[in-house]
């Protein structure tokens, strides 16, 4: 019996001679990470273990992206704890000040997470790096403390589900719509414990940005990891960035999958997830006639805050004004994306339209700062979660969409399709 890419990566990182789904194994880690919410707890546990030094200061990233620039005294304390620890342990990849970017966009951009890697992070969206053909999953703080000490972790080998997408994606439809559609089909626990492997001709043509978006939201279906076999598109992305060697693996033809889904997505529309579950999805054509007015539109996050996302938003916003009844908030996910958006003139388009630009931060995505919703307010957001109270008051509402729908909706004041707005060249 052949192996899936997930199984191959885990096998290579274990001491076992063979593995199969359900086995509990120890795996060596190529890279681990934590942020300003999860690192303080992990540091506390690390100290309890009694180890003097971390296993390898060059394989750990500490990224205070959730509450920075420090939003209040408590978060300033937390960030300081992380900073002190990073200095004491000489953690090589500690990002501070103007270097901070949203972790799951920053690390791939920096070439620190690579194909074939085995990675854990104390953040549930660590599954994002599966887009590079890595095994990558979110864990708790105790796991991270253990990993900081020994450079390894225990794992249950997951079963894999294969998702095959056929056809050609229509205009304005991308990775966000594919993954919302998929979660809508299988539900928020449809892939619990399992690996979601995305493949098919649509994926083979899909740009890296969209692949990251898809793997990012694997956790929203309960998955352990999302993964895409590397190809030329992956290698083009990775080659000039990689800070170390990597290995390209793929799934065997006779690998075993617990389920296989096949969809022709040639007629897929932009999808919108209604409150309060990411699986609560509708195609845009069933939404626009509902006249869902908005108080805030957010374009950003580890799901859709990449340069490609900002380009799409700028294309639609160019020459238009943000509807006076709402705020449009845009967050370039990393300093490099911010700089590129500036050079390409995207920031000027956003500011001319009346948008607010925030520094790279998680802020609005988790209702932390830089754009928190009031009671009864409604937002459309390019993020990944629309749980109760996710972006602010427990009685606020979050709808999820791709950046094109978000930009068009920001102009028209209600959830709208991109083709309702005249694109001005």
């Amino acid at each position, binding site marked *: 019996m052949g192996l899936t890419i997930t199984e191959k990566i885990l096998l290579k990182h274990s001491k076992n001679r063979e593995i199969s789904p*359900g*086995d*509990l194994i*120890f795996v060596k880690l190529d890279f681990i990470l934590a942020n300003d919410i*999860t690192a303080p*707890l992990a540091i*506390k*546990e690390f100290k*309890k*273990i*009694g*180890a003097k030094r971390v296993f390898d200061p060059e394989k750990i990233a500490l990224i205070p992206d959730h509450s920075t620039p420090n939003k209040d005294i408590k978060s300033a304390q937390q960030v300081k704890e992380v900073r002190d620890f990073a200095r004491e342990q000489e953690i090589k990849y500690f990002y501070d000040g103007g270097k901070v970017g949203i972790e799951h966009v920053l690390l791939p951009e920096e070439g620190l997470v690579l194909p074939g890697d085995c990675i854990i992070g*104390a*953040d*549930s969206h660590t599954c994002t790096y599966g887009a590079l053909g890595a095994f990558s999953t*979110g*864990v*708790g*703080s*105790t*796991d991270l*403390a*253990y990993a900081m*000490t*020994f450079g390894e972790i*225990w794992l249950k080998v997951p079963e894999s589900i294969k998702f095959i997408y056929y056809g050609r994606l229509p205009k304005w439809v991308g990775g966000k719509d594919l993954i919302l559609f998929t979660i809508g089909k299988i539900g*928020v*626990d449809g892939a*619990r*414990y399992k690996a979601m492997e995305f493949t098919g001709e649509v994926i083979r043509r899909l740009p890296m940005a969209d692949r990251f978006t898809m793997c990012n939201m694997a956790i929203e279906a*309960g998955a*352990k990891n999302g993964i895409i076999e590397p190809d030329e598109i992956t290698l083009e992305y990775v080659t000039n960035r990689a800070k170390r060697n990597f290995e390209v693996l793929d799934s065997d033809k006779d690998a075993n999958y617990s389920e296989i889904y096949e969809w022709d997505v040639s007629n897929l529309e932009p999808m919108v997830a209604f409150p309060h579950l990411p699986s609560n999805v509708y195609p845009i054509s069933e939404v626009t006639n509902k006249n869902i007015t908005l108080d805030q539109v957010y374009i950003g996050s580890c799901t859709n805050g990449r340069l490609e996302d900002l380009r799409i938003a700028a294309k639609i916003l160019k020459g238009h004004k943000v509807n006076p009844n709402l705020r449009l908030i845009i967050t370039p996910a990393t300093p490099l994306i911010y700089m590129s958006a500036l050079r390409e003139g995207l920031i000027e388009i956003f500011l001319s339209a009346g948008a607010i630009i925030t520094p790279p931060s998680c802020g609005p995505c988790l209702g932390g700062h830089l754009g928190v919703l009031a009671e009864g307010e409604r937002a459309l957001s390019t993020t990944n979660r629309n*749980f109760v109270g996710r972006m602010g008051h427990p009685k606020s509402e979050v709808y999820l969409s791709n950046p094109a729908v978000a930009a068009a909706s920001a102009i028209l004041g209600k959830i709208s399709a991109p083709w309702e707005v005249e694109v001005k060249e």
Partner: protein
Amino acid sequence: MIYQGKALCYGDNIDTDVIIPARYLNTTDPYELSLHCMEDLDPSFKEKVKEKNILVVGENFGCGSSREHAPLAIKASGVQCIIAKSFARIFYRNAINIGLPILELPSAVEKIKEGDLIKVDFINGIVENLSTGEKFETKPFPQLIQEIINKGGLINFAKERIKGGEL
């Protein structure tokens, strides 16, 4: 590793927000957390758990955030172990890592009623309903996980590795 106690039953999709609401996350002290454990779901949990300390729950127990405060609160409440139809992934890890014994056994969950006297044998993966005489079996945890649980969690497990000269 054998636990015996009375069953306390809840349903499906119990999320970490219900297990320990976000408003109490300003502490990591297990005792303080236990004072609010499950209070949004069942205000009398604290009383019931004194008498019935084997939790028997449905699908997807512990879904939601990765907060370790959730299994910590349950453990500090005096719960001996949890039998579920299934656990959400990160809760499952966190429970084992903090030394809270858990077991997935859907057939047992379906049959057990609140108050039944339950015996759980982790070494052999057997759940016995002493009130009805029914017996349910599953694959026991591999030795490694039993070891982690026996030592009271991953941190103690790690300490011993260090003592054993591994670092």
